[in-house]
């Protein structure tokens, strides 16, 4: 399963550079449903793949990918009213009923894909308002409520019935209600606890981080002690510590078992926390909650170090140094989440594995009961919003095919298109000039103001000028160099002009050996070489795509048009007519 958001990245970045924010937003909305939310919170699985980071290697002090995620937000912030362009509830239904349990991003995506097709979709959530953990967990200083309201609203307005405050307590009962399909998008709600000496006695000041965050979100908690210890090294821990800073925590620290590098939290989450004066202490394993007659006073930690065994596996072993004791008033435990499906009767036909997780097909997302599907954090454990959306799309396709008596294992192929971008001898449909800018930083709100109010968003987002500059860093990777051997006269013009020494004309050979004797060595084995033969001199053309800038200079300097720049378009086929068998 791929991420639907990644295919059109350069396309919408170009639209943002062109100031066409509405169009950029709609491309995003179609593929990832929550551009405004994701533009602030996405885990950015696409950025490590961005070529910009590779081509800046040894050219700039700190090579960095394009700020893809933050550009998405610009489209959301700067667009006009796009409601006219959203699908309307159909005037006639198709008679099929779908239930979604949980109103997180996974369920909302299923609903958005199916409701406009005529499905009668009902979403149930125990919380009064839709959004799932987007609403209940992600703190407001990262994601303002009006952004959630707007984008969740767009989904509901496609004709979805939302039943808030309704907890589903029995799968068996729901199965009896005649739905054509049931989608389980209940997330991974339970935070893992730490069963250490003193846990019970000092319970009043020890909180499960994830529950604590949602209590803060809903306004049940609005302060915390002056000295706070956050246990755990993931993104939840980062949200906990930054939230604590805003609720009265002055001496807030994060304590982690592992080393700094191995922490699960994204590098920028760690940076943001440290930027707010929160130290991160590593290689300390909690041993005991110390209390004074039930009143928490601190935590004792054992010092460990990483040791690698013969097979290269890491183990944390005590260093033998004396234990460390840190005083504190509150502890937030953010050491992971557990799945809980107590409400699914184990005899209703849904198989579970030894870890208490449902057995789910990774492609179709169906459980062993074909009409019951799982997605988002409920399917394979906690991940992130963009994966929940991806699951939602795939589940919608499965449901659509299921409801049309078609095999769900047959997945619709994506639509592929390759179009020349040439407009004149040296003119292209895209701006082929290469920017030398370094990644632009997102402006932040002044810390004095940011730390005072938990509801004040920290990131201000790129303004349109910064967005343009950042967008210009994009290398238009969807516009690809295409070579045609019969046209080539081997004049070397493309070789001479290529700024990255990508192109070599040489004698044929085995790939391994070939990689070493190109004009510049092809060092990324994950990147296939582009090879074309049948040249007049008997040589072959080899192009190493790895650091190609897509500047189009090879095509501009080619006298015969043997190189062309063609835009590769990949449309993921959504649920609906296109995903079904042709009859």
């Amino acid at each position, binding site marked *: 399963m791929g991420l639907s958001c990644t295919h059109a990245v350069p396309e919408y970045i170009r639209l943002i550079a062109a100031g066409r924010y509405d169009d950029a937003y709609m491309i995003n909305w179609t593929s990832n449903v929550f551009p405004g939310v994701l533009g602030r919170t996405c885990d950015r699985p696409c950025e490590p793949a961005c070529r910009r980071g590779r081509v800046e290697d040894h050219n700039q002090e700190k090579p960095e990918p394009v700020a893809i995620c933050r550009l998405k937000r610009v489209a959301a912030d700067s667009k006009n009213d796009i409601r006219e362009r959203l699908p309307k509830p159909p005037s006639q239904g198709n008679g099929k009923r779908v239930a979604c349990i949980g109103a997180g991003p996974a369920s909302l995506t299923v609903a958005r894909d199916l409701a406009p097709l005529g499905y009668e979709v009902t979403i149930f959530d125990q919380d009064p308002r839709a959004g799932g953990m987007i609403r209940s967990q992600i703190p407001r200083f990262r994601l303002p409520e009006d952004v959630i309201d707007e984008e969740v609203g767009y989904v509901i307005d496609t004709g979805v019935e939302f039943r808030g405050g309704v907890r589903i307590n029995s799968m068996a009962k729901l199965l009896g209600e005649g739905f054509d399909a049931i989608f389980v998008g209940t997330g991974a709600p339970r935070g893992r606890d730490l069963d250490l000496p003193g846990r019970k006695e000092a319970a009043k000041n020890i909180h499960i981080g994830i529950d604590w965050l949602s209590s803060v979100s809903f306004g049940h908690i609005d302060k915390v002690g002056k000295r706070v210890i956050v246990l755990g090294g993931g993104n939840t821990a980062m949200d906990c510590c930054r939230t604590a800073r805003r609720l009265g925590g002055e001496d807030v620290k994060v304590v982690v078992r592992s080393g700094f590098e191995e922490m699960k939290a994204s590098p920028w989450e760690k940076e943001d926390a440290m930027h707010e004066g929160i130290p991160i202490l590593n290689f300390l394993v909690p041993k005991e909650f110390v209390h004074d007659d039930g009143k928490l006073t601190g935590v004792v930690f054992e010092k460990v170090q990483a040791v690698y065994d013969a097979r290269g596996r890491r183990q944390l072993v005590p260093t033998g140094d004396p234990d460390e004791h840190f005083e504190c008033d509150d502890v937030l435990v953010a050491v992971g989440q557990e799945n809980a499906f107590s409400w699914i009767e184990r005899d209703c036909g849904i198989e579970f594995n030894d870890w208490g997780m449902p057995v789910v097909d990774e492609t179709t997302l169906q459980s062993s009961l074909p009409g019951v599907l799982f997605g988002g954090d409920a399917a394979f454990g906690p991940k992130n919003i963009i994966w929940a959306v991806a699951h939602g799309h795939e589940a919608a396709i499965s449901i659509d095919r299921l409801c049309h008596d078609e095999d769900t294992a047959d997945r619709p192929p994506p639509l592929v298109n390759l179009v020349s971008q040439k407009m004149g001898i040296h003119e292209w449909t895209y701006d082929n000039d290469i920017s030398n800018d370094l990644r632009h930083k997102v402006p932040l709100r002044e810390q004095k103001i940011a730390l005072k109010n938990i509801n004040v968003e920290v990131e201000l987002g790129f303004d349109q000028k910064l967005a343009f500059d950042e967008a210009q860093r994009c290398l238009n990777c969807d516009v690809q160099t295409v070579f045609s051997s019969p046209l080539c006269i081997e004049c070397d013009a493309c070789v001479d002009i290529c700024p990255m020494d990508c192109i070599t004309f040489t004698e044929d050979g085995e790939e391994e050996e070939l990689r070493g004797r190109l004009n*510049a060595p092809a060092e990324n084995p994950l990147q296939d070489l582009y090879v074309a033969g049948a040249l007049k001199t008997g040589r072959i053309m080899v192009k190493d795509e790895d650091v190609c800038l897509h500047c189009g200079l090879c095509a501009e300097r080619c006298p015969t048009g043997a190189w062309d720049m063609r835009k590769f378009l990949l449309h993921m086929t959504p649920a609906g007519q296109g995903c079904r068998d042709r009859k």
Partner: protein
Amino acid sequence: MTYISKPKLRHPHLKTNKFGFTHRDYEGAVSTLCAGCGHDSISAAIIQACFELDLPPHRIAKLSGIGCSSKTPTYFLGNSHGFNSVHGRMPSVLTGANLANRDLIYLGISGDGDSASIGLGQFAHSLRRGVNMVYIVENNGVYGLTKGQFSATSDRGSKSKKGATNRDSAIDMVMLAMELGATYVARGFSGDKAQLVPLIKGAIVHRGAAFIDCISPCIAFNNHPGSTKGFDYVREHNEAVNRLDVMSPRETITVDYQAGEVEEVTQHDGSVLRLRKLSEEYDVHDRVAAMHHLQKSKAAGEIVTGVLHVDREPDDLHANLNTLTAPFNKLTEKELCPGSPALEKFNASHR
């Protein structure tokens, strides 16, 4: 021409030379020549040669005349000295510059029109005087810049793009250069950089008049079936008589060849030209025999390439004129104005 300049970004792992430069540090402005022009490949070969020889860019002077070929110095060695002279006059400007400052490396870039038509006389005298320089004629058989008229190197019987036949006989620049006493003579082809880069390096390390006739197809006006300077024609008729490797003084000689196959010619600065023979009979030191071979091959319709002649004991203009060893800009007032007694003495010697 392209509208954008060549991006600054470069391959993350390019080789660097003694100065820490990559080959890209020897580039110039982006070319405005026609896409595919052979001249651009020669520029790229010059860049590569200077990079490989660890030349400091500020010690090189590029001079040229008029023509597409003569425009190219703008497109390489952007940090070197440059002088774009009038049509056919590059050799005399270069000679003057060389006399004034013998410490620079001189690259004379010209075309077949620039050197074989309007500049033929200048070409001839710079070679016969033995000016220490690299003289490259980017030979496409036409006046490219003025839209493709036959030039003086165009072969008799070859056809223009429009179909007209050339009735005049051709000047062979290599034969002329040998006749005139150039001490390093080579012919290359813009479409074969593996051969061309060493030829240029050899010419640079050679102290004396080094001449390279480089066939360089004019994509716009002389790369059609009736041409004898197009890619296909040159590839079909190319007869390389040797392969050259240029070893810098600090490179130890590691490869062993069988005697007879390889010949080494040590240059003034200690560099070694290592020639691997491809033609048994061709002897680069025997000027008369070499000229004979060249004539025979030409009659057979072949284009001979490679190092065609090297003088083991080259002379140069400065040696012949017995000039000062210091360049003018290093001379102080004391040397330049030696005073009345010196003038007296000088005048007396003429009485």
